[in-house]
């Protein structure tokens, strides 16, 4: 790494500085668009006591499920955790603290963090268990809940293409939480499928400008499909 060249050549360098009890954001929706190699590296590093912010918790043997297997996650902030038996077990035993957050509120809390907004009001969750203990306020006759921004020590994201300066392009629905998380990490690490020299991406097509990205690593992706559905 030097200057504006964000490319690192090892996973060790990609996650340098990641230690126990940190807060991490991990991109993806289900198993779609997850930084597979960065998750594997966290398993190898054996970092523990993590607070993980991710829409889902993977499945038993893939995605964040791999960190759950090793009991590396202490607190999980997610919107839906249905696909993971191990998760259920650890949640019921109290080993794992779970903060369920409505999906849009989760995305906006992350977006707010990246955009320097400390908190925002949303109608989502008003009058539900999600609003318990939170400040509410009425605007134009409607009730809203105050939701604080969500920051992370590391944002671990997955993109399709990157250039050496960390400009990123996502593909299809593998974008999901990745573009917002890219903005909200103290250190943002992008694991990508393709890397090109700066200047080769059409600047009109860049989704995440390189200013948000600290490190880029080229990964190999299994891209496991959770629910393969085809035409009958």
């Amino acid at each position: 790494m030097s200057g504006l060249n964000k490319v690192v050549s090892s996973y060790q360098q990609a996650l340098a500085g990641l230690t126990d009890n940190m807060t991490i954001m991990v991109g993806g929706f289900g198993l779609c668009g997850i930084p597979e190699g960065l998750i594997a590296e966290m398993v190898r590093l054996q970092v523990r006591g993590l607070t993980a912010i991710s829409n889902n918790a993977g499945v038993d043997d893939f995605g964040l499920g791999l960190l759950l297997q090793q009991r590396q996650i202490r607190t999980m902030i997610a919107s839906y955790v249905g696909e993971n038996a191990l998760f259920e077990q650890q949640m019921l035993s109290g080993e794992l603290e779970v903060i369920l957050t409505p999906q849009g509120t989760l995305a906006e809390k992350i977006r707010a963090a990246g955009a320097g907004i400390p908190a925002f009001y949303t109608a989502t969750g008003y009058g539900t268990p999600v609003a318990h203990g939170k400040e509410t306020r009425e605007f134009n006759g409607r009730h809203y809940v105050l939701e604080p921004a969500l920051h992370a020590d590391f944002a671990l994201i997955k993109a399709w293409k990157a250039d050496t300066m960390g400009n990123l392009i996502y593909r299809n629905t593998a974008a999901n939480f990745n573009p917002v998380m890219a903005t909200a990490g103290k250190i943002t690490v992008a694991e990508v499928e393709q890397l090109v020299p700066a200047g080769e991406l059409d600047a009109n097509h860049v989704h995440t400008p390189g200013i948000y990205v600290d490190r880029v690593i080229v990964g190999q992706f299994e891209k496991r499909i959770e629910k393969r559905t085809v035409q009958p």
Partner: protein
Amino acid sequence: MALTREQMAKRVAQELKDGDYVNLGIGIPTLVANYIPPNIQVMLQSENGLLGMGAFPSEDDVDADLINAGKQTVTAVAGAAFFSSADSFAMIRGGHVDLTVLGAFEVDVAGSIASWMIPGKLVKGMGGAMDLVAGARNIIVTMMHADKDGNSKLLTQCQLPLTGYRCIQRVLTDLALLKIEHGAFHLLERAPGVTIEEIQSKTAGKLICPSQVPEMNV
């Protein structure tokens, strides 16, 4: 006769208008896509970041990077767009989606809905349901009118933890189409062969029935 799941989907599809952007939840709402009238054009929104969701792919077209909010592999139609989760929910929260169809455990006369959590059972999370009910301008809830023991799911006040507070105006059950207004359910249509008396007996919340209630065309 109570409506089948397919008939419920068919009835909901009659509410679609040419040019609508529509979000369909999991279960019966998903089936609505099979009954979109051929003479109108609608775009399906999938909250994981797709506007213009198409059919399931052929074996050759399966793409791990292209899934719906139920995590199933799908296709994108001509004119589709991809975007981040934050943009997706800005669309939803901002009231840009014309129609949202989703399931529920209970609704009440105030328009509150419970659909995500049964205390004592495992809680899997609300996903995008709370955002959808709070943000959509127009929501149709599809649900069974009563449980297996005949207990009404259309209540004076929801008993389960809420997904949304006072946000539902229309409910399609296997027995009836109802509007929620001024603290009551209003019977608009009944399933073919279902009597007003049966609907009354299975509706715990206040129900207002006009003297004539048309049968649905399904």
